[in-house]
């Protein structure tokens, strides 16, 4: 395990390396494509390198400090704000948001990461309440939430490029042999069974939040094997089906079926109990041009005055019955300290292990994170379309190891413009992730461009000619990886428990699944407990 000193030194090095927004361009002949590579941690500048004196120049007192401004931190802030608690949220980046961050160009807002929220289950009351608060749910009819139509994903939703044809939906069908189709049907029937299955404790086998799932040991035993092994054990041999399930694991976890727990894999298919709401299919989703950045902004706006951005927290420790949080304030160019009775660590565990120093108390090595690359492509003409379904919200290429692309402008109410921003997602799922991460750090914009073009060449052979800009975003620690053994193991539970009733933990990696609902769950739960205790 590396020391905190070394960790800080490393962060500084990363920061320095990625500090400047690099404008790049690729020019071959007359075609010029511009763009940049960027990633989190890039905000703090060179100045930090020269600061050896970590002695805080300023000390303030607060009731609560929240470290980290992703969805978990902002959700906690929402609850504290409602209860008039005096708190500060420290955020490393210039803007809060975490995986739900977004950017805007002249055409459209576009996501840097998470881009949709499936309709919540009807028993997820805290989330439903939030959605109603911000107008996503307009009202209830016969206890069924009614969603604002502007936020439900418009038609056409999904298409898959397979056998040289765009088919509707992502489950392979076009040109798929009937024996494979039968396997796919059998698989979906099994998932339907699991969706309704209850454990011996009368809880759903799989639910969202993960904490509401059954703790029946027979069901938890699924965590001991990989999704790949589960498919084999159940005679699911079809290449098409295996590709589809692997795609789903990559989509939600960034990991392949070999490195995803079967419990987590089944959770993906069986945890959503069927979107309720009139005229909606069970796979209906909520989405916005900026992706979950829209929801993030609704969380952030009411607490904006409490957020202190560009602050790199370096140390969190208990001193004299209180918690001291030391951080480097970039705007002031100095180290500062907040003393508070309670702190919420809305940071991932790979950060906590360094911030907590001696107080760290679990096997943080078990928390592994899959790296991701997200590229937003600005295309100046209609994508040259091959046969089949028209441009949809989610567009996937069968056989590719990327996740295809999402049309960021799909939810625009205006007529389709020939210019578009499409968001291309690629998890670097090769295990171990540490190696993939190193590879990602070395990858330059110039390397990515041909890889992206190659991947999309089959459906869009002339993409390059219409490409104007490519904004590449690197997520070194993109998603917590629910590898076999992680979901039912003790490590997660230990990392969840507060320290001395003073330092609390809230992050989606505590659930083992990196989705909006889990981050929201932890932030809301921990803040509520804190409020009701005091």
């Amino acid at each position, binding site marked *: 395990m590396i020391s905190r000193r070394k960790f800080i030194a490393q962060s500084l090095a990363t920061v320095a390396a990625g500090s400047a927004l690099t404008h790049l361009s690729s020019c071959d002949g007359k075609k010029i494509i511009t763009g940049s590579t960027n990633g989190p941690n890039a905000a703090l500048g060179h100045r930090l390198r020269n600061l050896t004196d970590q002695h805080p120049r300023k000390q303030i007192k607060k009731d609560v400090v929240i470290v980290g401004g992703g969805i978990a931190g902002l959700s906690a802030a929402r609850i504290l704000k409602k209860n008039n608690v005096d708190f500060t949220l420290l955020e490393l980046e210039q803007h809060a948001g975490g995986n739900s961050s977004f950017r805007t160009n002249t055409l459209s807002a576009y996501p840097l990461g998470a881009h949709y929220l499936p309709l919540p289950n009807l028993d997820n009351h805290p989330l439903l309440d939030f959605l109603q608060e911000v107008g996503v749910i307009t009202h209830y009819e016969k206890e069924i939430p009614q969603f604002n139509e502007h936020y439900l994903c418009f038609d056409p939703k999904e298409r898959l490029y397979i056998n040289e044809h765009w088919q509707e939906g992502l489950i392979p069908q076009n040109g798929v042999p009937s024996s494979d189709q039968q396997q796919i049907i059998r698989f979906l029937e099994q998932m339907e069974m699991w969706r309704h299955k209850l454990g011996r404790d009368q809880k759903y086998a799989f639910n969202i939040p993960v904490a509401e799932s059954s703790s029946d040991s027979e069901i938890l035993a699924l965590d001991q094997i990989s999704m790949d092994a589960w498919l084999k054990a159940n005679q699911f041999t079809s290449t098409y089906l295996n590709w589809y399930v692997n795609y789903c694991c990559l989509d939600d976890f960034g990991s392949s079926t070999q490195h995803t727990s079967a419990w987590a894999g089944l959770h993906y298919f069986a945890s959503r109990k069927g979107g309720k709401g009139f005229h909606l299919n069970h796979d209906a989703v909520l989405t916005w041009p900026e992706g979950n950045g829209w929801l993030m902004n609704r969380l952030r706006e009411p607490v904006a005055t409490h957020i202190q951005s560009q602050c790199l927290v370096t140390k969190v420790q208990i001193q004299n019955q209180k918690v001291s949080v030391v951080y480097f304030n970039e705007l002031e160019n100095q180290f500062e300290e907040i003393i508070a009775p309670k702190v919420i660590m809305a940071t991932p565990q790979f950060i906590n292990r360094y911030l907590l120093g001696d107080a760290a108390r679990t096997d943080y090595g078990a928390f592994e994170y899959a790296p991701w690359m997200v590229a937003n492509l600005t295309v100046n003409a209609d994508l040259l379309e091959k046969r089949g379904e028209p441009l949809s919200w989610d567009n996937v290429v069968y056989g590719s190891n990327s996740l295809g692309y999402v049309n960021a402008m799909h939810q625009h109410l205006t007529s*389709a413009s020939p210019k578009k921003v499409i968001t291309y997602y690629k998890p670097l799922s090769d295990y171990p992730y540490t190696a993939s991460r190193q590879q990602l750090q070395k990858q330059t914009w110039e390397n990515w461009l041909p890889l992206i073009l190659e991947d999309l060449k089959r459906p869009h052979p002339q993409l390059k000619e219409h490409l104007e800009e490519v904004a590449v975003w690197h997520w070194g620690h993109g998603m917590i990886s629910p590898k076999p053994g992680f979901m039912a193991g003790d490590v997660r539970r230990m990392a969840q428990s507060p320290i001395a009733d003073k330092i609390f933990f809230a992050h989606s990696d505590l659930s083992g699944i990196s989705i909006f609902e889990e981050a929201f769950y932890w932030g809301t739960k921990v803040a509520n407990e804190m409020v009701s205790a005091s």
Partner: protein
Amino acid sequence: MTDRARGQVPLLLIAAFVVATCGLIYELVAGTLASYLLGDSVTQFSTIIGTYLFSMGIGSYLSKYFKGNLIAWFIRIEILVGLVGGFSSCILYVLFEQLPYFRLLLYVLVSLTGILVGLEIPLLMRILQDRLKFKDLVSKVFTVDYIGALLASIVFPMVLIPYLGILRTSLLFGIFNVLVAGYLCFYFQKELIKSVFLKLYAAIAMVVLLIGFIVADQIIRFAEIQAYQDTILYAKSSPYQRIILTKSPSDMRLYLNGNLQFSSLDEYRYHESLVHPGLASLPNAKRVLILGGGDGLALREVLKYPQIESVTLVDLDPAMTSLFQSNAMLVKLNQSSLLSDKVTVINEDAFRWLHSTQAQFDFVIVDFPDPSNYSIGKLYTNSFYKSLSKVITPKGCAVVQSTSPFVARKSFWIINETIRSTGFQTKPYHCYIPSFGEWGFLLIWKNEFHPATTYPPGLRFINAEVFQQLTHFPPDMVEAHSEVNYLHNQALVNTFEKEWQEYTH
């Protein structure tokens, strides 16, 4: 037999192979183009293949009359095949709209290509007869012939049509034919008497085919313009659509993306029916909104009401509104409506504008293109009508152009159902417009509607009595069970597509 003659065998067999591949490609090109232009692919393919094979038989028969230097003859025919076969698709494409007897041209071209191709193999066999034993000759020539055919039949649908398109495919194989001819010219220099002329012919044919290959896109564009019956007055691609205006002595027509928008002969039927039943029922109406309708023709009808104080017209495409503000013939047609002081033209997306406006209107005309794609489909969703509801005054009403209740019956009633789901009451009606067919409208209001008893003077089609008749729906257009069109299901676009497809095929 000399060694040289024996050494020429493989080359001649390669020539046979190329010739066979090209031959089948021309046949497939003709079949595909005929099904594409004339429809009914089974009939087209069947008759084209029959004609082609029969013509090849004629060619084979005629081959016996060719005497003298067979290699020279073969080269001449190769060049001719390359030109005729290579340009066959261009000729058919461009002349499709021009000729009354297009089928005749089609079969003449197919026959000509077939005869020329039919000549090739027999001539080649005769060239080879001194160089091979008969049994080897037959076996080898037919083997390469059939392999060539197989290759052609596989690459044609999988590679050539998707990547090159039909025009470039035939031109490319014309080039191959000429390449064979050219190569043979050089290779058989000694055997040929005046090889210079042959080489020259081959070179010319090559240049012509290459030019054709390069300008194939322009040919397609040219042919597209030919597809309109009358003289093209105006053609422009705006960022949103392709606008084409045509004129004949008695008629002027506007096409957007190839779809007819109006014919000056009968547009009054459409626009009078669109505007007056609603607006005549509102004697106190002051403010009118038109969504779409950049041609100013609905506006012309609106301005027949002197009490109207202001009209806001929102049309996405500035190219449309400025065309109808500046072109003398069009300004005459819309009676300078777009230049009226009462009118404000806004070039913006209607949905976005509606969403952001605070203004209120007594009467709204919704005149969008038909919901033929998902993008336009958004303008027919319940979300859109909810926004629409907010800009209509309590006593006001609106009218929505709602496609053909005859061709797209379900679509028409889906629009009706969608509008009703947002709290409007509706009065569906329809009228016959010769250039369009049977067309449908929905008059919609929130609180009250009293049918007009008086209409403005000088109308040619609509009046109170006629409107009464238009509200009756015969059984073939009567209400069908319909779902609501939401942004997240776009039920209308899917239904509309299906209904028009069934009607036109």
